[in-house]
């Protein structure tokens, strides 16, 4: 197990290194670094001074070393628009995004697994077929358009829910959250549902597939032959075995929920990192783009690493094949 963790950690650090090189090339080599790092409103004198101060006259590898050591100290430059640390701004917006993503995951899990189980147990019933048809629709619906339609129905036509923003927040351990107040929930529920739809469809399909496969296995037949009740066979024997891949997918998909939050946050004007990213791209506030990228990439790599380790802890077969290879 220890060998596996160490091997995976080294791999993660390697991927992080590669990604930092790619970000560096993207921002410093493809784009003109002078345009990116120096305020376009600066005059020629200021520009020359800044070029020297940033070390842009040095060779490429030396510039990369400077960039890397800055990044490791949490210094990713200052935002042009807000004139504060780009990394600080991203971290300030992160709780809103995490809250939205977690709420969406929660909706997807609490609805997706039971619905998938139902459809898997009754694949040919009307309800089972309807659930599957619904999941194809969930895959096909473009997220941003569903968001617009939710606003149209629930905010414009019915007037039940607010169409944008996060509402009032409450401090929880120093982090602003909105799920502690009713008004916060009214703001959260629509964007979270919107973000959850795609993952809900995915979880339904996964759970259904897993259930159908598990039902044909010998251990299920044996459990039934032993005379166990139906609820025990399904609740303990089937569910426990299909949960391993599902837990893994939930972990891996969390990263993609964070990425898709960019779209949902833009539609609902939710003040998270994704909205900040889109605003920054439109304002050409490049330090924030770099900061967003490095923060998200790091988050992804950490999530993937944790999932890998959790998976190998849940399923010894993975660990064994990896250790051999």
């Amino acid at each position, binding site marked *: 197990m220890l060998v596996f963790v160490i091997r995976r950690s080294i791999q993660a650090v390697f991927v992080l290194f590669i990604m930092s090189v790619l970000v560096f090339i993207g921002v410093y080599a493809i784009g003109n670094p002078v345009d990116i790092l120096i305020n376009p409103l600066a005059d020629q004198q200021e520009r020359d001074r800044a070029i020297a101060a940033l070390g842009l006259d040095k060779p490429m590898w030396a510039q990369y070393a400077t960039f890397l050591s800055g990044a490791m100290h949490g210094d990713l430059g200052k935002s042009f628009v807000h004139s504060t640390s780009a990394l600080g701004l991203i971290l300030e917006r992160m709780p809103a995004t995490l809250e939205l993503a977690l709420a969406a995951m929660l909706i997807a899990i609490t609805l997706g697994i039971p619905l998938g189980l139902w459809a898997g147990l009754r694949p040919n019933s009307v309800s089972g077929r309807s659930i599957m048809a619904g999941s194809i629709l969930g895959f*096909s619906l473009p997220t941003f358009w569903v968001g617009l339609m939710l606003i149209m129905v629930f905010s414009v036509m019915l007037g039940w829910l607010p169409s944008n923003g996060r509402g009032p927040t409450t401090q929880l351990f120093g982090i602003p959250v909105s799920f502690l107040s009713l008004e916060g929930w009214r703001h959260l529920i629509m964007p979270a549902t919107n973000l959850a739809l795609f993952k809900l469809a995915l979880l339904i399909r996964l759970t259904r597939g897993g259930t159908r496969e598990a039902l044909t296995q010998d251990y299920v037949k044996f459990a039934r032959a032993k005379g166990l009740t139906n609820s025990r066979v399904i609740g303990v024997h089937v569910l426990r075995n299909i949960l391993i891949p599902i837990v893994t997918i939930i972990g891996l998909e969390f990263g993609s929920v964070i990425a898709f939050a960019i779209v949902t946050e*833009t539609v609902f004007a939710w003040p998270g990192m994704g909205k900040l990213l889109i605003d920054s791209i439109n304002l050409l506030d490049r330090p924030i783009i770099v900061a967003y990228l490095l923060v998200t990439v790091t988050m992804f790599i950490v999530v993937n690493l944790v999932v890998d380790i959790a998976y190998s802890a849940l399923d010894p077969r993975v660990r064994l094949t990896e250790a051999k290879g």
Partner: protein
Amino acid sequence: MAREDSPFKRLLSDFAANPTAVFGLILLGIIVVAALAAPLISPQNPYDLAQLDVVSGRLPPGSTSDTGATFWLGTDDQGRDMLSAIFYGLRISLAVGITSTVVALAIGLALGLTAAYLGGRTETVIMRIADIQLSFPAILIALILLAVLGQGILKIVVALVTVQWAYYARTVRSAALVEKRKEYVEAARCLALSPLRIVFRHILPNCLPPLIVVATVQVAAAIALEATLSFLGLGLPITEPSLGLLIANGYQYLLSGKYWISFFPGVALLLTIVSINLVADQLRDVLNPRFQQ
């Protein structure tokens, strides 16, 4: 079912066994024809400024203009007939989706076959790059690429190709690895055929079924991704309005109850994606040898 029929005929009759899939195929056919024939069937040319009249801007569906024409799906803020705008938007969405899929397929195919045939270090490098790339969501990669490259129809194709190639490389490699070990490849080697001939004439045709499925799904994914990027303001420029851009244009009027500017282009987008996915779903079953008796 007559098994002596040609493989293509058999495929066709297997496909027709599922009415939902046939419905998807017919729907897709109508959409493609509508996109191709846009200039012929549109009530007006939505980009000919002479035909537009701001006075008939933001009219609800079914209203008539002062010249007597009916706007079946309403008009946008410029007085553009939404039905015509959707036909023209479909052209751009489909063109971008199909072009990027074909280019990505070619690149992924070449790299995947190279990896499978050569093996060793080449294979490790190509597949590791694909693995790392696939561990990040497509939308994030495309977004960042467009943030660096800027707007434009060519740039969005580049972004879509970049996010797609890895799917094909992975699919074709795993299929080719299986085929490579089969006897007919060994036989071809014994005949001293050139490696290129073995790869393209012998291995590739046998790897096509899974690739066709992945490519179909990816056309839908590419169209959806382009729409999303255009909605975020990073995809196509306003001069080439795809469905995503039409939806984005209606966003600002949504809160005042003028739903049709966003609603109908979205329905067109949804129907396109659903019909492609329905066809892909059935193709997956038909082309999968495991399901054939």
